[in-house]
């Protein structure tokens, strides 16, 4: 679906929202169990990140983190469409990208808390979540870097004939950095099996993307210049994202080359832990909080006859799982200090001389 969200004259960034009761995908070809799975995933991403925020406020998580509250439908929709051996390249705002591939919650929370049982033993932190066994080939904290690296994984899959597809998530701010342009051209030239997913949450850190970008759709409007097919999608509608993901992944797997999708969404909070997001107009924030992906999906599932009690039960199951993961993470040991000197090299060590 192409979704003309806003006209976006220079300097104006108040988005025009779709109708609150979005019925476009009520009758899409998705069965009940798929939809309940998507709903459960949305809840997992939402509740885990809320917990991460709570742990920050209690000073149990140090450093910084970048939450994707409000943007869950994109990760959830893609994650459910991917093959287990497909590759994910995530951004520093990558908790949801990572969890949506099936990475368990406890090692993610433990990593945020800097524990030995963390996903990366405490060496990576919030911005670098990686789980090779789940195909999550990293979360990248330098804007744009991972787009060119994702191409390499796609090139490798193409050369090996493995049928694997690489999904590369990035934000709207990425579209103005050189690596974005190098990556799109490169992917198109070699017809790589990669899907570029722009999560357009309207803000490049603290600045509205529309204020510093000359086209209204920063990713989708540029894709054609590099020979990529592109589309925009309602990034808050998990069914819309999931169906688009299925289609784009199938195309890539069939050897039809790369594609780009711009999923329009909004982050509920600021850019990072340190940012309350006060630069955003109240009216805009309120409108998008109302147009929440979970609220939207509950409305659809209700119209389709799923009892609220069944969804509430899922919410409670997820809450229990988040509590359990929190306990496992909190009870994790501090990392062994010696581990600070391991794994610079493939021999497991860091020695640079004999």
């Amino acid at each position, binding site marked *: 679906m192409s979704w003309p969200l806003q006209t976006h004259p220079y300097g104006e960034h108040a988005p025009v929202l779709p109708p609150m009761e979005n019925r476009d995908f009520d009758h899409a070809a998705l069965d009940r169990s798929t939809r309940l799975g998507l709903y459960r995933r949305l809840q997992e991403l939402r509740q885990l990140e809320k917990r991460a925020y709570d742990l920050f406020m209690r000073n149990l998580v140090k450093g910084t983190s970048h939450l994707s509250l409000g943007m869950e439908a994109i990760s959830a929709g893609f994650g459910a469409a991917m093959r287990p051996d497909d*590759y994910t390249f995530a951004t520093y705002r990558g908790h949801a990208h990572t969890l949506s591939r099936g990475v368990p919650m406890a090692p993610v929370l433990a990593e945020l808390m800097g524990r030995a049982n963390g996903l*990366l*033993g405490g*060496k*990576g932190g919030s911005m*670098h979540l*990686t*789980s*090779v066994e789940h195909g999550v*080939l*990293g979360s*990248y*904290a*330098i804007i744009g*870097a*991972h*787009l*060119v*690296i*994702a*191409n*390499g*994984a*796609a*090139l*490798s*899959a193409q*050369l*090996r004939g493995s049928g694997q597809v*690489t999904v590369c998530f990035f934000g709207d701010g990425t579209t103005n950095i*050189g*690596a974005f342009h*190098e*990556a799109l*051209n*490169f992917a198109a*030239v*070699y017809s790589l099996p990669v899907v570029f997913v722009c999560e357009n949450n309207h803000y490049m850190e603290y600045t509205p993307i529309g204020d510093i970008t000359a086209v209204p759709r920063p990713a989708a409007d540029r894709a054609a210049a590099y020979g990529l097919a592109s589309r925009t999608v309602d990034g808050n509608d998990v069914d819309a994202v999931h169906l688009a993901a299925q289609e784009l992944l199938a195309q890539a797997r069939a050897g039809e080359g790369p594609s780009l999708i711009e999923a329009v969404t909004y982050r509920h909070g600021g850019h990072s832990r340190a940012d309350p997001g006060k630069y955003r107009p109240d009216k805009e924030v309120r409108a998008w909080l109302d147009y929440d992906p979970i609220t939207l999906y509950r409305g659809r599932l209700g119209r389709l006859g799923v009892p609220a009690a069944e969804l509430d039960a899922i919410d409670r199951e997820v809450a229990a799982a988040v509590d359990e993961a929190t306990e496992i993470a909190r009870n994790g040991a501090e990392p062994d200090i010696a*581990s600070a000197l*391991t*794994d*610079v*090299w*493939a021999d*497991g060590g*860091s*020695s*640079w*001389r*004999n």
Partner: protein
Amino acid sequence: MAELTYRAAVARGIAQEMDRDERVLLIGEDVAGAGGVFKTTPGLLERFGPRRVIDTPIAEQAILGAAMGAAMTGLRPIAEIMFADFFAVTWDIVVNQIAKTRYMTNGQVTLPLVIKTGNGGNLRFGAQHSQSIENWAMAVPGLKVVTPSTPRDVVGLMAAAVRSDDPVLFFEHKGMYASKADVPDGEIVDALGTSVIRRPGTDATVLALGLMVPRALEAAEMLASEGIDLEVIDVRSLVPLDTRTILESVSRTGRLFTVEENPQLLGWGAELVAIASDEVFWDLDAPPVRITTPHVPLPSAAALEDSVIPGVERIVQTIRKRLV
């Protein structure tokens, strides 16, 4: 045994590894159809096909990103950055991504990846196509740094680099591409982190890299006629560093000179002098001396470039002055 140019040795080294392991591929600007801008990769496209020898856009981040992603997922890419100066364009991928990923992921990701490049001066190419940047790379945890000075070592160290499970920056000295030497037949495989004593001697240890190795050797022959017996060590590998061979030599000779093409400030010679001062201080008979390029970008005119990059005459004069 056949006489081979340094540039032909590059192609031979790559071919040796591509023959052995089908996971090895070559990617870079003009490396396939053109056989490399320095003719270091001719014939590889014809021999191994366009799936394994890949011409790319002029897009250094895209090249190294592709190499990194391929290395993460089971291949063993060799990527070319045409001139070492261009590493500056791609420094994020090299430093923030390639060098740090194994560590940040607690050992989950292995990057068996070689980045080859034309390093150094002597071709009058001016400041943006001539500098020696191995010091930049040496300062970054997670990168291995190799600089061969002979055609034989090009083959052997290329093999070692390709077989390494760690990312290796392979600095070919572009001023040496036309140089020739005998290279043994058959497979040659060296080990990273091994320096080579090119000339045994007793009066002083001279450490050199790349083009500075033949110059140091020539200087040693001139000084030998004056009764000064220099030991010349080809460092070959800055990371990992063969401090054992180097310190053992310094302890034996009691004198240390480094000959570097890069600017003196924070050059690799400073690190080696610091290590020697720290660990074999009482074996030293005099303060170590660094012979380097001054702290300037490289000029283009022959007379100017020759005046700043250490030449045989400056090496001879500096060592003579200190030893006599």
